[in-house]
Every structure is written in structure tokens, then in C-alpha cells.
């Protein structure tokens, strides 16, 4: 394993020092418990947005803290959920009297820790609501699994809900909007290579030289199937078709199309993939209103990408376009 680290146990703390050094003018970093919060928090009268999850997916979530998006983010250890004390301290730090929304990706650990944090927050008199993302179509959604994983939709939901919170919408309204974004969003990922967590030092799975895994999770969870790698047009088709069929998206729908890199794939390949995705969406009669291309919800140094589609309505579109000023997403400011 070769990584730019000082030691496997200090990766998250050391990276937070970098975040503080780079963005100390607009973000505040707490180390114990660990969270990143807007420097001007709490914003009076605004719903506070708190998200969090395992580290290794940067810029999500810490890179999305700032006006127009999250108020605070709680980083866990690499690929490990953060803990309830982090989340409840962050919740208190962003409570401006209008309540706090927890944005939670559907993983067993994240759900249990945020549940405990919400219990703690309510115990201290903060109004707390939760929105769960579970948009990964690669996972069979049934009573016999932990359910679908929260992936790419999380980024888009954090932006859209952030816009609504900045517009001083109520906690109930922001939560409802978040649930609508999740209900109308679907994603699928693929990997060309595994990734290596600093703690284990070993690849998270084995993949043959010419193999791809279609339906991969952002922690290297296995996907739907493996096959010999084909041209990008074929890889795009393997992901777009199940996404479109799942919601289902229908001809005439307006969508936000998001091609996300897993961390180790260059932008030239992501744009090449976007060309294939756009062509396929056109074939399905979908109208791409907005797009996002780049590394936003990553899996350390994994090579690969994911595709997310959200069926937009006017409100979602308005809040997607609203100004945002974070290290990871910035426009309109």
C-alpha cells in the first residue's frame, strides 16, 4: 500500500487539519468530537442541515458544508459511520431555532448511529427530522436485505434541500422535499479497480485485469455482476437501462443527470461517459435539464463511475439552481 498519510490511525484527523487550514475562513472544525460546521452557524431561523458518514467519499460530506448546502458534516473513520456524540454535538451547533434535518445514507451503521443521535438531540429539546437516501438500484430492495444503499442522490439532495433551507422553508417542508428527491432518484455504479482502506492495507475485493464490476457500492460492496470490459458505450448502457427501468423514467421526463467519478478515474473518461449517457437518455426521450460531472461521492482511489438520475419538478430545479458556496460545489455567488 502506498498512500500519502502519516499513519493509518490518524488519516481522518490529519485530513481535517487540512480542511481547517484551507477553509478556516468559512468553516470551523471540531476535532473531538469530529465535525465540520459553517463558521456562521447557527443561522437564526434557518433549518440546520446535518449529514455525515464514513470518510473516504470526499468531497462528500465535509466539502459540501457552506451557505446553500450543509450546515455541518460528521466524518467517521474511513468507510465507518460516525458516532452519535459527533452527530448530536453538530446538531446542537447548527440549531438556529427552526429545527435540524439529518440526511442519512441507508447503511446499517449510519442508520443506527443517527437514530441514537436523533434521540439524544430530541432529549435536549432540538426538533430533529431525518431523511434517508436509498437510491442504488443494484441492490434488491426487500425485507431480506438491509435495503438499497444511499449513493449519488445524497449529493443532489443535500444541494436541493440546502437551497430550500436557505430560502427559510420549514423543517417539515425541507424534509418532504428531501424525501421527494430521494423517491425520484436512482443510481448505479461500476468499478474498474478496487480501493484500499488505510486501516486494512488490502484491496477491498479482487477484480481480474480485464473485468469490471457493474453495480458496485461506494465501499466496494459487490454489484450485480462482473463481465469482461467492453467499450464505454456498453458500460453506460449496463447502468442507464436498469436506472431508467427502475423508477421508471418515462419519455418527456425532465431529469438531472449526474456522472460521478469514484476517485481514481480521470475527468476525460467521465466526460466521455457523459457523452454516452446523454445519448442513451435522449434515446429514452428524457430531457436533461441540468447535469453534474466530476468526483463528488468517491470511494478512495477506486477507478470507476456512477450514474444518478433525478426526475425534476420546478421546485427541485429552482433549489438546484440557487447559489451555493462550499469547497466542493460553488455557483451563483
Amino acid at each position, binding site marked *: 500500500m502506498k498512500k500519502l498519510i502519516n499513519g493509518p*490511525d490518524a488519516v481522518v484527523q490529519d485530513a481535517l487539519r487540512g480542511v481547517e487550514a484551507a477553509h478556516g475562513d468559512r468553516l470551523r472544525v471540531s476535532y473531538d*468530537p469530529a465535525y465540520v460546521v459553517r463558521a456562521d452557524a447557527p443561522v437564526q431561523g434557518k433549518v440546520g442541515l446535518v449529514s455525515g458518514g*464514513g470518510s473516504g467519499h470526499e468531497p462528500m460530506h465535509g466539502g459540501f458544508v457552506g451557505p446553500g448546502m450543509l450546515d455541518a458534516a460528521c466524518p*467517521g*473513520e*474511513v*468507510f*465507518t*459511520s*460516525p*458516532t*452519535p*456524540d459527533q452527530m448530536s454535538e453538530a446538531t446542537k451547533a447548527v440549531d438556529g431555532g427552526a429545527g435540524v434535518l439529518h440526511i442519512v445514507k441507508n*447503511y*446499517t*451503521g449510519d442508520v*443506527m*448511529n443517527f*437514530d*441514537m443521535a436523533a434521540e439524544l438531540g430530541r432529549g435536549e429539546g432540538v426538533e430533529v427530522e431525518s431523511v434517508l437516501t436509498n437510491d442504488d438500484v443494484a*441492490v*434488491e430492495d426487500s425485507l*431480506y*436485505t*438491509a435495503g438499497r*444503499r444511499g449513493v449519488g442522490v445524497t449529493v443532489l439532495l443535500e444541494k436541493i434541500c440546502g437551497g430550500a433551507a436557505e430560502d427559510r422553508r420549514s423543517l417539515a417542508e425541507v424534509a418532504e422535499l428531501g424525501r421527494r428527491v430521494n423517491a425520484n432518484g436512482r443510481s448505479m455504479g461500476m468499478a474498474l479497480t478496487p480501493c484500499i*482502506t488505510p*486501516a*486494512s492495507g*488490502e484491496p*477491498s475485493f479482487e477484480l481480474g485485469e480485464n473485468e469490471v464490476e457493474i453495480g458496485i*457500492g461506494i*465501499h*466496494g*460492496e*459487490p454489484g450485480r455482476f462482473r463481465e469482461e470490459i467492453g467499450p464505454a458505450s456498453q458500460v453506460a448502457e449496463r447502468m442507464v437501462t436498469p436506472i431508467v427501468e427502475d423508477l421508471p423514467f418515462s419519455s418527456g421526463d425532465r431529469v438531472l443527470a449526474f456522472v460521478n467519478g469514484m476517485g481514481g478515474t480521470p475527468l476525460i473518461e467521465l466526460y466521455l461517459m457523459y457523452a454516452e449517457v446523454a445519448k442513451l437518455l435522449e434515446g429514452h426521450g428524457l430531457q436533461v435539464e441540468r447535469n453534474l460531472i466530476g468526483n463528488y461521492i468517491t470511494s478512495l482511489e477506486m477507478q470507476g463511475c456512477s450514474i444518478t438520475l433525478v426526475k425534476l419538478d420546478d421546485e427541485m430545479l429552482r433549489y438546484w439552481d440557487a447559489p451555493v458556496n462550499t469547497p466542493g460545489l460553488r455557483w451563483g455567488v
Partner: protein
Amino acid sequence: MPVNRDTALAWMRGFAGEMAEHRQELVRLDTAIGDGDHGTNMDRGMRKALERLDGAEQADAGAVLKTVAMALVSSVGGAAGPLYGTLFLQMGGAMAGQEEVDLAGYVTAWRKGLEGVQMRGKAEPGDKTMVDALVPAVEAMEQASDLDGALRAGVEGAERGMLATVPLVARKGRASYLGERSKDHQDPGATSTYYLYTSAAEALAG
């Protein structure tokens, strides 16, 4: 040996030792069907728990377990933090205020702990989780007539439950994403739970 503050401390030190010793084994089991962090997380959490136990006087066995619970909840993350945190919190609550915990008190604490884990994680027996080690262990302990017998029954029950997870298809946690591919692997959570029983037998027997 009676279950009291000092033996409970010895038990928790023993469990921390097991987590350090079997860290790589648990990482390997978790890498096969999960995300590979179980050994690292439990080792880190129990080291933090020992720091806190060393840092403050504990009133009784219940207080020892509650201190461990809070340390795990605030340092482990993942699913193991809330699950082991809840287990120890419930057990500590059941033992609180007793200078010496007798057989009935000890077994009741385990039953409360199991109920807490199921409330938090919503897992049923057969889902391929730590519940599969806990259920046969607690049931076997409830048949025991003395503490030494209960400790042995706990180890045997947990071992049986742990080994029985091998052919199961996971229905909870990250392993459930694997579906049929989760078969033929031993559950890491049931394995760490087994070590909780072996360390109890080591520290509390005799």
C-alpha cells in the same frame, strides 16, 4: 468468583485483549462479507474503553459495563458501536447498584442485553448477525444452576451459534448485499460476541 466491580474490570480487560489479539481475524472475516473494519473498530473501541475505566473510579460491575458502553458508542461507529454499546448499556443497567451480582442477576443482564441489541438492530435469529451467537448463549445460560455452569454454557452456546452462521444467507447489515454469496462465511459480529463469552469465562469462573 463472584461478579463484582473487580472481576467485571478483569472481564473487560480480557475482552479488550481478545479484540487486540483477534483484530486481523475479525478484519479478514469482515472483508469477506462486509467492509473489513470490524476488528479495527472493536480494537479501537475497547482501547478507548480501558482508558476511560482507568481514568475514573467505578462504583460496581454495572458502572463498569456502562462506561464501556459509552466509550464504544462514542468511538466505534459503524453498526458495532451502537450494537455493542446498547448491549453493555442494558447489561450495566440491569447490574447497577449491586455490589455482587448473583447467577440470576448475571443471566438476566444478558437477557436484557440481547433484547437491547434486537431493539437497536432489528435482527432476528438466522439473519447472520451477533444475535445468532447471543440467543443460544443466553438460552443455555438460563438453564444453568450455578455461575460456573452459566459461564461454560455461555461459551458453548455462543460457539455453536457462531459456527451456525457459516451456512446462513445474511439478511442484515452490509453482508446482506451479497445475498447467496454471503454463504460459507462465518459472521464477524457473532465471532466477536463469542470472544466476549470466552473472556467472561476466563475472568469470572472459579
